[in-house]
Structure formats: structure tokens, C-alpha cells
């Protein structure tokens, strides 16, 4: 009896996965990449942040399946003799951390503002909606580029390198809160008009209690779907900023930094230093996007027809 009860959601999940093999594949790919990134210190044969452990004599070695490779370096080495496999593991870790934290900031700013706008209405609503509109009409990537460029020009490259992670998280986080505010506001407006909310209000619940205990739990689905696609966007933004030299420094590379620093080697024939981290980045982005689409169909069936 209990075994059947356990099996049913599992079977439902398997059934859903069988119906969407792409999503299942994406979930597996993301799981593998996520675990590899989380346990990078245990898996990586070398600490890519420790500049002393590289040997320039190892620089520019190709991956193991090409001629002239060294069995110590599975995916070859970069211009400084850094093991590319280790660098990619740690780089993925940084990219994922920045992406997740940035989206956490977006949600932390956007959701409360959206809820307050929906529940209070009136001038509060107008102010939040207007602010969101203005911020979205300026391109968020452009704003992030300008903000980091000014930090760099004002504080110098060294300080920017030292505080790169928090700066990237804050800049990408602040740039895109309006998406969460809009989604939370729209969903909360629908909920706020329902009978159970009016009943709670009639019973004397405070505004804060109604919003946090009744409305928020009921609008989580669209917010989770949004968060997924936003993570992909944040990872892409981080990679773009690092590629421009405005993000993670070469001493602590993310995937974007690796792509940039390998780019100079490409014309010397060492394409793998750029292409391999690029492929990992694309795998992450596509997996997250495919998974986001699947989540939308699962959690928000009304919009799945689109």
C-alpha cells in the first residue's frame, strides 16, 4: 500500500520524463554538471586558482584524444599551463554561484515590491510599475556593462578583481528585479480578488499575514518558472561581462573568463582552450532553458499551449 503510494509520484515523474525526453536529458546533464561543480575540489586534479602549481612548460597542450597530449591533462592546458579540466570545473562553479545568487537578489527585491504593489494598489502600484518599466526600457546588459566599467575605471582593475563575485551578483541582481516584480504583481492581483483572501481579511488578518501566508504560497509556480529562465539569463550575463574583461579576473576564472583568455590562443591553433569551456557554458544554458520550459508546462498548464 505504502509502496504504491511512494511509487505513484515517482511513476508520474517518470511518465512526464518519458513524454519529454529533452527535458529529462536536460535534467540529467544539469545534475551531472551541478554535482561536478559542487564537488570540484574533490574531483579536480589541480587547484586552478593556485598559480604556483602551473608549469609554463605544460602550456598549450591539447586534449587527451589529440596528438601530442599529456595523460595528466584530460582536456589539455591553457596558455599558463593550467589544467583545463580543473579550470572548467571551478569555472562552472563560479558561473553557477554567481547566477544563482544574482537571481536570489532579483527575487528578494522584485517579489516583495510586486506583492506590495498588487496588495496596496493605488499610488504604490503606479510607482512600482513605472520604475519597473523604466528600468526594463534600459537594456539590463548595457546597464551592467556601464556599472562595472565605471567601477573598473574608478577603482582600478585590482579592486574590481578582488570583489568580482559580490559586484557581479549585485549588478546582475539589481538589473533584473522588474521581471519578478511584474510576475509577482500580476499573479498576486488574481489571488487577492479571490474569496479566501477576502475571508482572511474579514477575519482580521493583517496585510502582511495575508500576503505572506496566503497569497505568496499560491503564486509560487509562476515565480519558480521565472526563476529558472532568469538563472540562465544571469549565467549568460556573467559570462558576457567576464568575456569583456569586466567580470571574473584571470586568476579566478569563470567560464566567460576562460573563453576570453583562451581566445588569444585560438589563432595559434589551440582552439580547445576557448571551445571546450564554451561548450560547457552552452550545455548549461540550454539545459536550464529546456528545464524551464518543462517546468512551465508542469506547473503552469494554462500557458503550455504557447
Amino acid at each position, binding site marked *: 500500500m505504502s509502496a504504491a503510494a511512494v511509487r505513484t509520484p515517482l511513476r508520474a515523474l517518470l511518465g512526464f520524463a518519458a513524454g519529454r525526453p529533452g527535458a529529462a536529458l536536460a535534467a540529467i546533464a544539469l545534475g551531472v554538471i551541478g554535482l561536478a561543480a559542487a564537488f570540484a575540489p574533490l574531483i579536480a586534479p589541480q587547484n586552478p586558482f593556485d598559480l604556483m602549481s602551473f608549469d609554463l612548460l605544460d602550456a598549450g597542450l591539447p586534449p587527451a584524444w589529440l596528438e601530442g597530449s599529456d595523460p595528466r591533462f584530460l582536456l589539455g592546458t591553457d596558455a599558463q599551463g593550467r589544467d583545463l579540466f580543473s579550470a572548467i570545473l571551478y569555472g562552472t562553479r563560479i558561473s553557477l554561484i554567481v547566477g544563482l545568487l544574482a537571481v536570489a537578489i532579483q527575487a528578494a527585491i522584485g517579489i516583495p515590491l510586486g506583492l506590495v504593489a498588487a496588495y496596496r494598489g493605488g499610488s504604490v502600484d503606479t510607482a512600482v510599475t513605472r520604475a519597473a518599466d523604466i528600468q526594463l*526600457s534600459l537594456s539590463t546588459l548595457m546597464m551592467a556593462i556601464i556599472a562595472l566599467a565605471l567601477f573598473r*575605471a574608478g577603482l582600478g*582593475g585590482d579592486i574590481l578583481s578582488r570583489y568580482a563575485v559580490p559586484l557581479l551578483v549585485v549588478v546582475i541582481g539589481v538589473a533584473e528585479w522588474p521581471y519578478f516584480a511584474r510576475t509577482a504583481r500580476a499573479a498576486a492581483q488574481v489571488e487577492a480578488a479571490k474569496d479566501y483572501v477576502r475571508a482572511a481579511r474579514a477575519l482580521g488578518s493583517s496585510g502582511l499575514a495575508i500576503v505572506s501566508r496566503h497569497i505568496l504560497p499560491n503564486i509560487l509556480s509562476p515565480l519558480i518558472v521565472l526563476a529558472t529562465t532568469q538563472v540562465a539569463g544571469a549565467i549568460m550575463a556573467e559570462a*558576457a561581462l567576464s*568575456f569583456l*574583461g569586466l567580470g571574473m579576473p584571470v586568476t579566478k576564472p569563470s567560464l566567460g573568463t576562460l*573563453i576570453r583568455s583562451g581566445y588569444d590562443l*585560438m589563432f595559434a591553433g589551440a582552439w580547445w582552450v576557448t571551445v571546450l569551456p564554451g561548450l560547457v557554458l552552452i550545455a548549461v544554458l540550454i539545459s536550464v*532553458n529546456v528545464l524551464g520550459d518543462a517546468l512551465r508546462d508542469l506547473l503552469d498548464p494554462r500557458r503550455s499551449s504557447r
Partner: protein
Amino acid sequence: MQAIAAGLSFVGRRLIQAALVMLAILIIAFAVKNALGDPLREILGEAVPEAQREELRRELGLDAPWPVQLARYLGGAVTGDLGTSTIYKRPTLEVILAKFPASFELVLGASLIVLLFSVPAGVYCAVRPRARGARLILSLSAFGISIPVFLTGIFLITLFSVWLGWFPAFGRGETVRLGFWETGLLTADGLKHLILPALTLSSIMLPLFIRLVRGAMLDELGHDYVRTARAKGASHLRVWLAHALRNALLPLVAVGGLQVGTLIAYTLLTETVFQWPGMGFLFLEAVTRADIPLITTYLVFVGLLFVITNTIVDIVSLMLDPRISLEGAQ
């Protein structure tokens, strides 16, 4: 007559609004310049005694209170004087304007590719939503939107420059001067250099615009006038192109025009990959070498492009759709 007057007043108010936004951008640029840049260090270098600095500061009027300096900066801005670049030792606006043609031609090339492909593909996906080709286009565009623009560029270079050797990997190639405009469009070499960067830049805009065209077309096809046009005997093709597409262009102009900021950011990335000597490439050089006057002038220039496009989009929308004027101008 009344409609024309209402339209003119709308345009007038829109222009005043644009001027106010520009003023705000200039004030921000002034604040950034004041906070980050020390013009004395740019002129004298570090090793000059304090007394001499004081003297020069007074001579240049840098000891004036900030409202006076702001007024001077704004006055200079009106005449096109936004400072002197510390790298190039020339007026910053001149430096940026010299790089503008390169960026413009890159965007032009990419826009042509986007227009050429997104409109037919979007219309096709809207009128034949269940066709295998339409599904393929949509899944390819979902795929394309996941690939960062700089990686597209790198992959294109790897394939077509490093492996096949068909196209050059960086620079603008041979250019021709037409007055102040340095164009790469008139030489075979210049065009050859443009292909990969333009393809790269279009790859990121194309999926977006295919979805936009498709969405706008789907909305139009649901209207009654489409059925009426069919009923009076107009051919499918005529209904799609002459009726629905024409009306679908309006939201397209409005939404597409709002993508300028994003387009500038993607152009910056593309220019970096291909070492394309445009404004974005110049901006990053200014950032690495802390050329504050050049950075702030770039911000003002990009802000100006943004304000001009948004104003034009609003006015064009007004001309395409007279309903806007009646609501907006009262």
C-alpha cells in the same frame, strides 16, 4: 485639422521629454566625470608640486563651485565639446564620431540579415503553425537564444577563418573615405570582413524577431477583418501580406525599437570578438586605460542614440496608428 494639431502637440511634447532625458543623462555624465576623473592628473601627471597644481586649477577654473562647472559642462555639450580624451589627446566627441561608421555599418548589415529572414520565417510560423518547418524554425530559435553572442562569433571564426580560411577573422579590411564617413561597404575586402561579424550580431536578434513577427501575426490573424478579407475573395497570400502583416508591423516597430540598448550591448560584444574598430571596442579600450572623459562621452552618445530612437519609434507609431494621438494628446 484638429487631428493634425493634436498630432503636432504630441510630437512637441515628446521632443521636450526627449530633451529633459538628455539633460538628465548629461548631469549624470558630469557627476561621473567629477567623481572619477582628475583633469589635472591627466594634464600634468603625478610628479608636480601642489602649489603649481593649485595655480593651474585656478587658471582652468576648476576651483569654481560645482554649479558653475556644471553650467560650463552643459554649455560645452550644446556646442559639441564634451572634453578631451586622455589617450588620443583629441576632443572626445571627434574620437567617438570617427568610430561611429564602423559600428553603424555592422548594425546595418546585421539588421538586413534579420529583416530578410525574420519576416518570412515569422509569417510562415504564424500561418502554418503545425507545419514541420515551422516547428523546426521555432526550436532552432529557442536553441539560438541560448547561445551567447560572443560564442557564436568564436564558433564562426573557428569554422570559417581558422579551419576553412574563407573569411577574415578580425578588423574591417580596406575602407574608403566619403567625407567624414569611413565606409567598408564599397570594397570587396570590406564586405568580406563584414560578413562574419554581421552574421554573429544577427544570430542573437534573429530568434527574438522571428518570435516577435510570429506573435504579432498570430494576433492579427485572429481579427475579424482577416475573415472578412477572405470572405470577399482575397487570396491567402494577399490577406497575409497586404492585410495582416501590414498591421503586424506596428507592434513590431514599437517593440523592436525598444531593443536599441540591447543591440548596443550585443554590438559591443561582437566588436570585441572580431576586434571591429567601432564605438564599443573604443569604449572598452577607454575603460581599461581609465580615460574618464572618453567614457563619459560614450555614455552621453549612447544615451543620445537611445533617446533619438525611442522618440522616432513613438512618432512613427503615431503616424502608423492614428488612434494613439486621439487618446494621448487630449
